[in-house]
């Protein structure tokens, strides 16, 4: 199976339609609510597909239509619990038996090779999410238009090849397909959502290692405009009220300086040792400028039972004290073992107990990882007889994708996402006894001041570089001229910059 780097699927060469032998079974899942007439037309276009009919199953998830939908040529399943698009999709995918789940809206017109166009990608790799090229028409037969947002995104990212971790934003339910196994590994559809359930699913698929492939040839027409096209502002107002909790990658929805959110941006994993050491590490992780971090505290919590015990001579005293300390902190979660993944959080940071994070450590590490979309940042903290002590920032999506392959995870992550070692002191790590005291806002301002100082230093160096460049260039002119006069404007500007500091 090809190893795709980030979201650059260009090494994949799908065969032309009609020239290959398919083997995977596909379940087309259509959520439906009171739309029997258009649904009939959609299902009819599915009957004409070039993809072998014995490999196709059509599942209609009826979200409580009145009268209930009856449709020859389709398996109809009824939503038993809850209601809405999320519930319908989840009911449909749970009933699906195919290797691939292909989401389709109820009012779609498809060319005959639509399914085949999608399916050829799934025969190449097991972690593709294929996005159909959906055009909106008023009447069947029109050429149709692409939503502006979609068009611009595709244009600016070489059709998502350069979109990196944000490729999921184009995931919709109108016509996309994904391997059933990947879908279930990502946790299926959030049945509680009636809107934006497709975007939220796309985010979790990304964390599961998916590559998003918008296929120009997988054309489909949606009859009538989408709700977003008609009432964009209201749709955003509605969806953004809860997407901030669910998709930590939408940083702009988390502008608040200190409230807590459902899905953290970084899960910091700490193993419980002594009370003081553990406390230093956990407290520092919760005190950073990146506020939507949460801690997974790993220890044998199950051993802490309720019988009468000697208060100060408890053999599990330190563990019990830690339990007391964080019992009511919503950002600390107690776990019996190190979690395999931080999903749906996009990053996991494991820190050796006894090491503390500076105020800006998490923010800087994540910024560094995002700069080149690194899958792993290893932080060298110290070195002793037993080797190098390191903290690790792991990108959830990278390690999920690596797990799909045979081989050492770190090597695979390096190949598909890139990895790097950095110095712990450069990122503000310190041992518990060297650490600065945590004190809320002052820590934040110190971090800010530190950053500004660094910036000033960089800008000074830049001014110096430019000055010598100007000197070099102006001096490069024939010596008969009067370069100092001709460059007077620029040098006075530089003087001004220098004096302004």
């Amino acid at each position, binding site marked *: 199976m090809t190893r795709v780097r980030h979201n650059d699927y260009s090494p994949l060469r799908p065969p032309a339609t009609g020239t290959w032998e398919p083997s995977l079974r596909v379940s087309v899942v259509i959520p439906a609510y009171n739309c029997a007439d258009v649904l009939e037309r959609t299902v009819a276009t599915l009957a004409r597909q070039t993809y072998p009919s014995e490999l196709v199953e059509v599942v209609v998830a009826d979200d409580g239509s009145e009268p209930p939908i009856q449709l020859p040529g389709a398996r109809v399943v009824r939503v038993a619990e809850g209601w809405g698009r999320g519930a319908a999709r989840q009911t449909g995918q749970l009933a699906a038996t195919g290797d691939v789940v292909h989401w389709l809206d109820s009012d779609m017109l498809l060319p005959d090779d639509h399914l085949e166009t999608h399916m050829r990608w799934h025969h190449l790799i097991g972690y593709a999410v294929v996005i159909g090229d959906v055009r909106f028409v008023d009447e069947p037969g029109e050429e149709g238009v692409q939503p502006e947002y979609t068009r611009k995104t595709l244009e600016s990212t070489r059709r998502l090849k350069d979109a990196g971790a944000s490729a999921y934003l184009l995931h919709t339910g109108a016509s996309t397909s994904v391997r059933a196994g990947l879908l279930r590994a990502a946790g299926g559809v959030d049945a509680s959502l009636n809107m934006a359930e497709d975007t939220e699913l796309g985010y979790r698929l990304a964390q599961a290692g998916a590559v998003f492939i918008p296929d120009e040839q997988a054309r489909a027409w949606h009859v009538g405009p989408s709700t977003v096209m008609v009432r964009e502002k209201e749709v955003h107002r509605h969806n953004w009220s809860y997407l901030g909790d669910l998709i930590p990658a939408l940083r702009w929805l988390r502008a608040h300086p200190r409230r807590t959110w459902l899905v953290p941006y970084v899960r910091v994993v700490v193993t419980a040792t002594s009370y003081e050491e553990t406390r230093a590490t956990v407290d520092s992780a919760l005190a950073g400028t990146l506020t939507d971090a949460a801690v997974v505290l790993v220890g044998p919590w199950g051993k802490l039972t309720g019988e009468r015990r000697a208060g100060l001579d408890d053999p599990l005293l330190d563990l019990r004290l830690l339990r007391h300390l964080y019992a009511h902190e919503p950002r600390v979660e107690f776990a019996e073992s190190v979690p395999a993944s931080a999903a749906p959080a996009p990053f996991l940071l494991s820190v050796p107990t006894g090491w503390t994070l500076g105020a800006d450590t998490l923010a800087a590490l994540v910024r560094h990882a995002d700069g080149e979309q690194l899958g792993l940042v*290893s932080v*060298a903290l*110290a*070195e*002793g*007889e037993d*080797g*190098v002590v*390191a903290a690790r920032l792991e990108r959830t999506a990278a390690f999920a994708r690596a797990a799909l392959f045979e081989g050492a995870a*770190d*090597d695979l992550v*390096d190949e598909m996402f890139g*990895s*790097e*070692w*950095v*110095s*712990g*002191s*450069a990122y503000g790590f310190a041992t518990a006894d060297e650490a600065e005291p945590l004190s809320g806002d002052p820590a934040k301002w110190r971090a800010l001041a530190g950053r500004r100082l660094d910036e000033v230093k960089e800008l000074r160096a830049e001014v110096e570089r430019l000055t*010598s*460049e100007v*000197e*070099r260039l*102006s*001096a*490069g002119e*024939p*010596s*008969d001229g*009067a*370069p*100092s006069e001709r460059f007077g404007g620029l040098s006075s500007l530089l003087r001004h910059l220098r004096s302004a500091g």
Partner: protein
Amino acid sequence: MIRRLLAELRQAQVFFAGIDDVEPLHAETGQGAVTTRDVVDLDRDLLGTPAEPGKAREVLVLAGTPADLRRIATLHKLLPRAERVVVAVLDTPASHPAPVPTPTPAHRWRSLTDLRVHQPENRVWVVDARFSSSTPAGRTVTATARAFAGHRLDVIAAPAAAIAGVGAADWRPGDPNATPAEVTGPVPERVGAPGSDVVLRTLAGGPPAEAPGVRPGHGQGDQDGGRAAEEGGGPGTAAWAGDERPIERPALRAVSWERLGRPGMAASPLADPAVLGEPSMVPPVDERLVNPQGFVTTPSRGMASLAERDGRWSVLLDGKAVTSFAESGGVTDADVARLRQIRGVEVDWQRAHSGPLSAVRVLAGLAAAGVPLVSEPAPRWAGALGDELIGLIATSPDLSDDLRREEHSIRLRRAALRTHGVAARWEQLGAPAPAPPLTSVLLATRRAGMVPFALRQVARQRGGRLEVILALHGVPKGHPDVAAATAAFEGPLTVYEADPRAVFGEVLNEAAARASGSFLLKMDDDDWYGPDFLPDLLLAHAYSGAQVVGTVPEFVYLSSIDVTVHRRQATEQITSFVAGGTILAERSAFQAVGGFRPLRRSVDTQFQEALQAAGGQIYRTHGLGYILRRGPAAGHTWQEPIGTFLQRNRQQWRGFRPNALMAMDGSRP
């Protein structure tokens, strides 16, 4: 600037070189506003050699760049005696410090009464010397030229040469020992000795009948030159009055495209690409000033092209000329300085410069400076570049990658400096090759297990004559690892069992005492060295003139995390520090500062400090031939924390990743 100087020195005789736009010089004279005065273009005028140099009140010497001044230094004997000498260099790269001439206690400097070195405007340096009595003006010129080249002895390791004809100084740049002669000879006698051991003259040619006799193939000194003159004989072949047989080369103007295109030229030997296709047809590159020094590893500007503009090759970036080369094709240090921020230069072979030889000369100069050149396959007329350079230029490396770019640059400079450097050129012309210097490798170790590895690093050196002084510090020479490795080593090897109680500095000094080389090279027992490590250091020694040459750990293999890092380092410059495992020192300098201090550690730093305190210089060459091994902390409590090596990284790789110049297959040897 030129006008200002002329106005200031109305009486002065004027000599200049490296100035293509001569109008201001002649215009001022032509107007006859003051007087008509002598203005001599040392590049283009056919020079007479006065039996006794004349006298002048004032002499003004104008050079375009420091590189041009070095040609004037070659001709210094032609300058008259004067009471005031003003030397002005109009376009000096910013990297040069003030060119302060150093008077020696020699008799002729005693009349110096006033010396002023100043910079009247950016990039212009003026040396103004006054004497109590009339003194040879050339002395001030050579002393200034020497100041631009770091006050090194001006020596070209070749026989004493006489030069004659237009532009002949190009062949001996910066050689005050050259003897200028009339184009028809003879070579003036020197005190009690013939004026030269070998003669090179350039012939201006002209119509085909006057075409100079030139032959392909490596010249065999004067003998070959003489035969060539005979074979090419005919009306117009310049006669030579003297017993020597001059080596003859066409003046560059004789082989301009314009001249070659004239009717009747088809029959001339100059039209035969095989005749012009020899490196020895082109004047050498003055590597003392045109060399890799100042190479920029991460350039800020994009790809440029080398294309024709107004009849000359220019480097064009975004349609603008960054620099235009002299008609002669001589690349100057000022040209190179202007090209340093450019990523690479693509050669346009159409309408190349003023003629085939001058075009080749441009390319040889750029390559010697390490300017990354790429092109389509070279045309036949460019054969004088030499096969190696022609091959390299056509390899089309990925110059957008900084590391690939630097590898390409290093390959180019090696080839160019070895083919087109001054000493190399004179060997091609028949001068006897001096014996290559012996380098003594000082290898001190406490670890028997590292000896085989370390000796393999020495054995793989591809050039440079060397011997090894293996200093065993607490390890018996009979140890099986040591015995096997020393037995397998081919080449001179001295094994020395140091007193186990001696400290590191003492061990090294004892090893040096057993060395017989003129260079000492301190290598470490666990670092990797590329096969060109020593040859590159010797090359850098030759062009930099520093007494100590080395490099920095730009590449480090961190064995405890199995990562190779490429660190940001400034290289190809005079510096205050090179890595301990890369110190190449002139033996005389090593002895002058008393060797290493008897310390357990920091001996490298201490040695370098002492050398600089004594007025010596350290040059840091490129870092692509050396990989520092940073082992686990357990072994060395004193080494730098691992985090230090993870900062300022340009690039990082998992595993051991040597660059291409290390010539390793990627496995750990």
